[in-house]
């Protein structure tokens, strides 16, 4: 029988009708919808149980305690450690997305020489050549680490000089170090026992020092009260976050903070508001008023306010001798609630600027902030984990990423008490990365190794029998039966905190009142943050909330 066109039509009609009595259309409809819920090009989070590890943050010198959640061997979440006596569970905002940093597009993964890919052997031979020709300087961003001792040892054995790049916070402390003849690395602020803090533009609530230390203090004793236990007086040209939250805000002209400090000192001396005797500042109130743009009355008012509730402490964001001198006048040096000398002695490091950069080569450690650009025509070997862009370095050497290397975190620059953390390598070191210490050890295998250095630090602390180790609950050092036991605790993320500094441990004497130097602009932690890049999330959120202008080079 022959099939007509009509048959075909009717047959098709039959098929069409029949299909609706099969699972085909319905199942397809469902599965396609499920497909849209699990699009193959959308990344899936890792599976498997989550374990929590504790460690210390190494992204800057603040030594915050980190609680890291790990899945399938990768960090998948970060939060603070509430049992950490210094940070009390707080972190800087960037810390919460820090586990993304290792995959940042700007991550350095290969040696680069003048912008071109090079090999480690080339870099090594180049550096060896430089060492042979000498002189060479090694710049450390965070002195006092186990790794620093490796750098130091190399310097000692190869006639190269070991230098440090001081953070703005440490620089602010240098005047006291000079006047008191003590190492700047052992100085800190006893914020906990002071009752009035006068900040000359220091971003106290915005990443200054160890985040969490002051913010917690402020929220407990200052926030939201018209007559707080802790008075925060912010002196800053613009209404910064700290200024917006301060108890009082004074807005002098840009760079006139030093003058204001001297003027206030003058008032204190003239009106005998302080007992201490120091050389009279060479400034008149009218000049000061003219320079700062504040009225003479408000300068007086400020002076009176300072001595109303003592102890009082003045803090500058960067080196500012006048502010330091004001502290001396206020008796805020070497006393509780002032600038204090910590118990553990530390060597006083030589800043890089000390000898005008006449070097054949400079090796810059990965802890040195990206902003640090040596004014020298030496051959620069820069270790870094991320490429912050616009680097003048001849060699860019990729170093291990966040949580990728075993290192230790010594006391934070502004801390009042000595602390010690060990940061374990929670994730494997990325291929092709070498830390400065590893690099130098390749050249000289007789150098001490970081792990041993950490071990000896722990033994050292154990011998002093001072302070306590804070894990979930604190354990006094003397209660540990062995240094190893204590080290294991520290390696698991516990923090050692030493005794509070003794009062009167040091004092400063002023020969004459320092000349007022224009202060550097206050920098919030967006600047002090060590990595030259923001975690992509942070960059995104600050852009979308228009809360903070992330510097262009920090964009994800």
């Amino acid at each position, binding site marked *: 029988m022959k099939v007509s066109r009509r048959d075909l039509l009717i047959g098709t009609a039959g098929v069409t009708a029949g299909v609706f009595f099969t699972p085909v259309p319905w199942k397809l409809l469902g599965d396609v919808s499920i497909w849209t819920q*699990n699009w193959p090009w959308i990344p899936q989070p890792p599976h498997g149980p989550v374990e929590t590890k504790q460690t210390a943050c190494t992204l800057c010198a603040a030594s915050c305690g980190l609680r890291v959640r790990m899945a399938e061997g990768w960090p998948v979440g970060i939060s603070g450690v509430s049992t950490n006596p210094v940070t009390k569970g707080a972190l800087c905002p960037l810390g919460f997305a820090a586990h993304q940093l290792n995959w940042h597009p700007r991550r350095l993964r290969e040696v680069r020489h003048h912008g071109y890919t090079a090999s480690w052997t080339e870099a090594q031979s180049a550096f060896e050549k430089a060492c042979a020709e000498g002189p060479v300087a090694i710049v450390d961003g965070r002195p006092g680490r186990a790794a620093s001792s490796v750098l130091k040892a190399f310097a000692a054995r190869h006639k190269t000089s070991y230098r440090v790049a001081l953070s703005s916070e440490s620089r602010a402390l240098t005047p006291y170090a000079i006047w008191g003849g003590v190492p700047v690395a052992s100085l800190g602020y006893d914020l906990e026992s002071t009752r009035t803090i006068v900040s000359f533009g220091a971003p106290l609530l915005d990443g200054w020092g160890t985040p969490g230390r002051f913010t917690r203090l402020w929220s407990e004793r200052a926030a939201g009260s018209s007559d707080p236990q802790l008075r925060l007086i912010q002196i800053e040209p613009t209404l910064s976050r700290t200024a917006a939250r301060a108890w009082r805000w004074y807005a002098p002209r840009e760079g006139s903070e030093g003058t204001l400090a001297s003027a206030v000192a003058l008032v204190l001396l003239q009106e005998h508001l302080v007992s201490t005797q120091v050389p009279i500042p060479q400034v008149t109130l009218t000049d000061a008023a003219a320079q700062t743009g504040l009225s003479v009355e408000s300068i007086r008012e400020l002076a009176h306010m300072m001595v109303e509730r003592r102890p009082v402490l003045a803090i500058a964001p960067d080196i500012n001798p006048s502010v330091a001198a004001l502290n001396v006048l206020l008796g805020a040096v070497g006393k509780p609630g002032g600038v204090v000398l910590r118990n553990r002695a530390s060597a006083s490091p030589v800043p890089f600027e000390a000898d005008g950069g006449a070097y054949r080569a400079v090796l810059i450690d990965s802890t040195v902030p990206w902003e640090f650009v040596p004014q020298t025509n030496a051959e620069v070997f820069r270790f870094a984990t991320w490429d912050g862009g616009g680097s003048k370095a001849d060699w860019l050497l990729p170093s291990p990423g966040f949580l990728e290397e075993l290192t230790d975190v010594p006391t934070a620059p502004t801390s009042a008490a000595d602390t010690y953390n060990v940061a374990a390598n929670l994730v494997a070191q990325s291929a092709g990365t070498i830390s400065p210490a590893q690099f130098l050890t390749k050249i000289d295998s007789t150098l001490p190794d970081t792990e041993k250095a950490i071990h000896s630090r722990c033994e050292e602390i154990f011998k002093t029998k001072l302070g306590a180790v804070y894990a979930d609950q604190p354990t006094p050092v003397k209660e540990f039966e062995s240094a190893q036991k204590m080290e294991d605790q520290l390696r698991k993320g516990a923090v050692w905190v030493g005794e509070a500094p003794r009062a009167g441990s040091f004092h400063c004497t002023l020969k004459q009142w320092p000349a007022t130097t224009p202060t550097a602009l206050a920098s919030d932690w967006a600047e002090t943050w060590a990595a030259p890049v923001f975690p992509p999330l942070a960059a995104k959120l600050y852009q979308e909330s228009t809360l903070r202008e992330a510097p262009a080079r920090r964009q994800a």
Partner: protein
Amino acid sequence: MRRNLLVFLLGFGIALIAGWAVFPRALYVRHSQPLDFFHKTHAEKSGLAQCDSCHVIGSDGQYSGIPRTEVCAGCHSDKLGTSADEAVLVDSYVKPSKQTPWLVYSRQPANVWFSHAIHTRRAGLACTECHGHYGETDQTRIYEQNRISGYSRDIWGHSISRLRRAPGDGMKMTDCESCHRRHKVEVGCLGCHQ
């Protein structure tokens, strides 16, 4: 007119056959596991009779799922027996301490949160209620994956019509819901979604 009816029914029949017999086979792609594993053997020979001798629930309530290679290595640090799969396990997973890429029959999508702890400890359900008696078999099933949604066939269940299903066959949301209804446990969407 009669001829028309016949032709129509012919087309209708073709559609039915294609839809019910051919379509289900075409929809799923079949994968075999990286190596054979026999629950029965492990239960009898090595006394791992209880499910939770390998599939454990941690003290914080987290469920281990299929044991990691470290667990297997507890016994299989060296080859036990001569089977080819034994060699595969030891040489390519235990020795280099890599995880075995098991295909999980009852894997739910990322937006589903299912707590073994709550269902076994608090509700006291038996594993077999959802997983059937696979744990007592001595064969390794083929893993069937839906070509479109990428789900394991166990989610929809093996009968394409979802009628007359064996217990534990099918792990769709409707199955969870009906069980919850049976046990009068009311949870909102967020109870099981994340």
